[in-house]
């Protein structure tokens, strides 16, 4: 390192750029490692879930399947059956295979959440950077609109829009969620962008005569990428919980599509009958959200960010 610096100093040329600082190693704790394993597991399920599912998500299982060999009962119950060789995790309130529905539902729940979070980031980061590099009036305008959006509880906002649109489909669900969460992304992206904009190296780039686009792509984006990535994890967790809550209220994903939140809702009556059917999809959600939070915890410990502070917004 020092030799190279001396070389460039002597020749006064920049044919060799100085070394980049050593990459910070992210040390993962045990919960973090388990978290990564679980997230990878669910990502695989999103891809192959419907292929490996024993039944289709909407299949109502035949009574014949449940007839115990040797018994004289011809019409056994198919609803809320305990786990067995026919239904590995039991059956749900109208006799569908719970495991298959969870495997199918992974694609719906995770797919919608990822798309909605990406949309929130697309809108939020674009507007946030525009506000931090743009004129004072643009910044003020965008910030005021954002403050107004943030002063409505997100679930209220969603309920009003869902009522107005009359049980909208998945497309609208993604759009509404992405739009609502864009507001908090905007706030973070704007404050991170402003921090970079007042730094010396941006000043230097401006003096050098670099254009606005160059500054955004070469200076701002690389510098805010890491904190935004950490925030993406947290935002993703909120979005999963949010969409699951909407589905749980019966206002999100509509039947017969399976989605983890609505599966909890529809199987809730089984709880009193001694069935664990509502718990399985709820645990699926929890496993994913806890895992992401554990990974984010490790990431933010490595970058020195304070998770607790971020959790407010």
């Amino acid at each position, binding site marked *: 390192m020092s030799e190279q610096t001396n070389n460039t100093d002597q020749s006064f040329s920049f044919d060799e750029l100085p070394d980049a600082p050593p990459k910070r190693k992210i040390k993962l704790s045990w919960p973090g490692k388990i978290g990564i394993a679980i997230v990878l597991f669910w990502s695989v399920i999103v891809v192959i879930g419907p292929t490996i599912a024993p039944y289709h998500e909407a299949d109502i299982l035949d009574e014949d399947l449940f007839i115990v060999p040797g018994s004289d009962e011809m019409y056994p119950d198919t609803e809320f059956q305990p786990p067995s060789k026919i239904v590995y995790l039991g059956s749900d309130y109208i006799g569908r295979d719970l495991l298959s529905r969870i495997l199918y539902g992974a694609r719906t729940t995770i797919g919608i959440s990822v798309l909605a979070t990406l949309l929130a980031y697309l809108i939020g980061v674009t507007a946030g950077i525009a506000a931090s590099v743009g004129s004072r009036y643009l910044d003020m305008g965008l910030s005021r609109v954002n403050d*107004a959006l943030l002063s409505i509880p997100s679930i209220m906002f969603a309920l009003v829009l869902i009522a107005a649109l009359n049980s909208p489909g998945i497309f609208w669900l993604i759009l509404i969620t992405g739009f609502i969460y864009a507001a908090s992304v905007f706030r973070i992206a704007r404050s991170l962008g402003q921090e970079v904009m007042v730094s010396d190296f941006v000043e230097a780039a401006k003096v050098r005569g670099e254009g606005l686009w160059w500054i955004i792509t070469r200076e701002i984006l690389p510098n805010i990428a890491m904190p935004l990535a950490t925030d993406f994890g947290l935002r993703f967790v909120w979005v999963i919980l949010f969409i699951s809550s909407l589905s749980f209220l019966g206002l999100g994903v509509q039947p017969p599509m399976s989605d983890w939140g609505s599966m909890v809702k529809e199987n809730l009556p089984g709880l009193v009958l001694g069935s664990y059917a509502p718990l399985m999809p709820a*645990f699926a959600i929890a496993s994913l959200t*806890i895992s992401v939070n554990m990974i984010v915890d490790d990431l933010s410990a490595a970058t020195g960010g304070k998770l607790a502070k971020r959790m407010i917004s």
Partner: protein
Amino acid sequence: MIWRALLARLGISLVTLWVVSVLIFIGTNLLPGDVAQIILGQMATPENTAVLREKLGLDKHPVEQYLVWLSNVMMGDLGISKAGLGAGLGTPIVEMLGPRIDNTAMLTVLVGAIAIPISVALGLLAAMHPGTRLDRTITFSTLNIISIPDFLIATILVLVFAVSLGWLPSIVYLRGDESGWVLMKTIAMPLMTLVILSSSQIIRMTRATVLNVMSSPYVEMAILKGVPRRRIILRHALFNAIGPIVNVIALNLAWLVGGVVVVEQIFSYPGLAKLMIEAVQMRDMPLVQACAMIFCAVYVVLIFIADMATILSNPRLRHPK
């Protein structure tokens, strides 16, 4: 000086509330088509649609409609609901709201009364012994609780206390004349769920706030002059953390809105949030508007209190240069 800061903040809150009312009005009027016809649904005839249109003021310009709606809301007239339309022109929303607001207010006040002391104490305890097993246990379990869905906590509680032990009812039947022990037993389940939900967030943030104060120079000074740790926390750190902690509590009570919606639904608690869900399912737009306005107003007031706590507790903000 301080009054000016207060008034400025109050002004911002009022403007926010106004913008929120515009947003809600636009949101509920997004749908294309005739609201009167949608409200009446299958019962729509040309005659009663026309009557309802006039009654709702739908024949006027949207801006005029908004102004009429706003002035009615200001005077306590929240409009009429779709419910009971068969007989006449619907039930006045104000009548429907009364008992629901009482129920939700009772629930949230009790949640606050239980959750706030417990969680501030636990947060302080964790901050007093950072890095110890106690602290790690508290931090880890609260992080887990805030990352799982609200309805999972409720489901597990139902499983334990209603199904396995049979101590508590899994659904709330409020007749309105319960008191004391019976009332507590009836609403115990939603109460417990909400206490767990809100306290984990308050514990985490109390801990973070106190630790933040603990890293300030005057605490270092106190350590150097040999003040015992307990005294530093209770005498120096806590007083400076009170503002941020009140801020945290107000923010979390506001954040509880989402939790209340899910919890009231799962235990069929006859509160405001459940009324709103029913309104959304029935597409009873005036009722949706009214409920959303109430929730948003409470939210804005809580945020205002949160900001006030920050300003009042910080001398530098209290006397701006």
